[in-house]
């Protein structure tokens, strides 16, 4: 299994009459499948909130969804289950799935009681996942319906960072309307995973299935994007790299010698990760006769769990731009859509920050910008949600907890129409 790596500039042509140009580089990365390789087994830990507030239908549907999830896994996969209220306990110890009925019985035995302490749940999950991480794709699904009132959010994030160091991925699922979208988004971002919103109990089954499908398509893990910039190119000063698909995430970078390394985490076979790099190209560089000017050299470093190999390097891709006379903008429409996805996310974030500072009108204006951006990229569902909330704020109405969560989710992703399966 190797890597697909594609780079496109927002506009390949640069105006020779200007001293420099700002450009965005869209980088698409996925794992490529070849016929003779099959994926590594999954090493999954379900971390389930069974606090008192989950009592009744919520916990019943979550248990049902979890049991169905077990049925969709392969017998070579590993599973473990951690339950938490204000304390955490191992419900199913890490094991290969040769006795699925006993696993499902143990899930069924969970009872709703107590408060919520997410960090203890994650801590036990890391312990269980680490028992079976060799040669596997290690993933944790953390589901909660509440604030982490018996826990410590900073500790959650430390565990999420630790998970990444051990090449495990954490996904979060917010259930109902009373969880904290800031914390769950941070855990998922730090844990290299995705955040899912389960608005009503009936959606639990489908969201579990979607997430399982995503982690089953992970072919390569622990991927880093490595960028080498020539002297005539510099990154934007503020948040120069972000992922825009499958969901919007601000990415952090570190320097490795003369390279910039950006952790991407898992690479999927059927879903592209798209990263936007915002940069300034100084035109006063050595230009060859054809007028091309170097912009960046990109490469991916990754682990292949099936072959138990780490630190594999992809073939580098060299990106160049052209200095032209009589410049006319020719924008790559696909890159433009990726940029709009990032603009939608950033504008919504700015609106949320304004709202936190009590600036309701400022928040409404910014949400309205985000709605326009969403419309421009053809994301009508997001446009409707964002605009409705902007209008609510303008009319002096508070946003409900559900409104806030929907806003966060539509800003991060392009929602697919729910399937009827």
């Amino acid at each position, binding site marked *: 299994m190797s890597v697909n790596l594609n780079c496109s500039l927002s506009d390949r042509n640069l105006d020779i009459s*200007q001293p420099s140009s700002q450009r*965005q580089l869209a980088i698409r990365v996925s794992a490529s499948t070849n016929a003779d390789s099959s994926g590594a087994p999954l090493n999954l830990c379900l971390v389930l909130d069974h606090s008192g507030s989950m009592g009744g239908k919520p916990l019943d549907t979550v248990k049902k969804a979890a049991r169905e999830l077990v049925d969709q896994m392969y017998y070579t996969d590993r599973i473990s289950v951690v339950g938490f209220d204000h304390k955490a306990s191992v419900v199913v110890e890490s094991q290969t799935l040769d006795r699925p009925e006993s696993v499902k019985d143990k899930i069924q035995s969970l009872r709703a009681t107590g408060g919520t302490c997410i960090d203890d749940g994650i801590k036990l999950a890391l312990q269980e996942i680490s028992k079976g991480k060799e040669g596997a794709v290690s993933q944790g699904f953390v589901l909660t319906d509440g604030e982490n009132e018996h826990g410590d959010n900073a500790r959650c994030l430390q565990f999420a960072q630790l998970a990444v160091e051990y090449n495990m991925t954490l996904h979060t699922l917010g259930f109902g309307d009373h969880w904290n979208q800031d914390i769950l988004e941070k855990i998922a971002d730090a844990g290299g995973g995705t955040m899912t919103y389960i608005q009503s109990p009936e959606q639990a089954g489908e969201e579990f299935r979607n997430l399982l499908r995503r982690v089953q398509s992970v072919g390569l893990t622990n991927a880093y994007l490595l960028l080498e910039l020539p002297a005539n190119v510099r990154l*934007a000063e503020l948040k120069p790299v972000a992922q825009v698909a499958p969901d919007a995430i601000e990415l952090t970078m570190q320097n490795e010698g003369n390279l910039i390394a950006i952790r991407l985490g898992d690479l999927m076979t059927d879903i592209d990760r798209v990263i936007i790099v915002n940069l300034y190209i100084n035109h006063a560089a050595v230009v060859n006769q054809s007028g091309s000017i170097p912009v960046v050299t990109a490469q991916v470093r990754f682990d292949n769990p099936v072959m138990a190999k780490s630190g594999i390097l992809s073939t580098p891709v060299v990106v160049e731009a052209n200095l032209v006379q009589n410049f006319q903008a020719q924008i790559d429409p696909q890159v433009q859509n990726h940029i709009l996805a990032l603009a939608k996310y950033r504008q919504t974030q700015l609106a949320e920050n304004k709202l936190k500072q009590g600036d309701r009108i400022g928040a409404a204006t910014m949400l309205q910008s985000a709605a*326009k951006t969403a419309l421009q990229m053809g994301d009508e569902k997001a446009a409707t949600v964002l605009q409705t909330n902007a*209008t609510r704020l303008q009319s002096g109405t508070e946003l409900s907890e559900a409104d806030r969560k929907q806003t966060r989710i539509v800003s991060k992703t392009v929602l697919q129409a729910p399937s009827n399966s």
Partner: protein
Amino acid sequence: MITCPSCSHQNPDGATHCEACYTPLPVITMIDCPSCGASVQSDASFCGHCGFDLTAKTTAAIIQPQQEVSEPLPSPIQVPEPVSAAEPDPFQPVEITPDDLTEIITMPVSTAPTAAASPSSNPKTQLQRITASLLHVQTNVTLELPNNLQVTHLGKPNNLIPPDIDVSGFPDSDIVSRVHADIRFEGDAFYFEDTGSSNGTYINNVPLPAGNRHRLRPGDRISLGKGDKVSFIFQMTE
């Protein structure tokens, strides 16, 4: 430095899209004032040196051929951002949205007054009220506070709170925030408030904390931003 009209982030020179929110940035170039020949910013509404009105016909004649026609922006996002709220919103989402959505989207958020900022737009007062003015120290241009406004907004063109007094024509106006400060008239006194500017306001060389009011007295020196680069003397006439 280019301040984003949408989120006020200060972007490095050469940016065409805001690094923070990806809103296309106004291309600010320097143009020569047709009246006195001084170099002024192309988005200014009047010349800060001689007070010449750069808006209306003049603007169209000077700016558009230079940057909007012959030099298409190298911008991947074409989000229409009106330069000032007085212009109609060119955004037309009709084909792609349900009607109700279209209706709310095209509804302007701000209903703040959009009084013209050029000094020539303040004819002599008829109502005998106290009138006040700001003398720009660096250029000796006097700006009268528009009459009958309870709150006068100071800043540069933006689509959030359009300034009643637009200082974008003055030299060094890049240190002034788009939404910088308000002057409030209450009772028979004027009060100065910084409305959350990035670089602050100094009154008689003392920083004015955001949210604090200063009762203005004739002769007060108001500096927008650091370094006493955009400074005014407050004046009152009865």
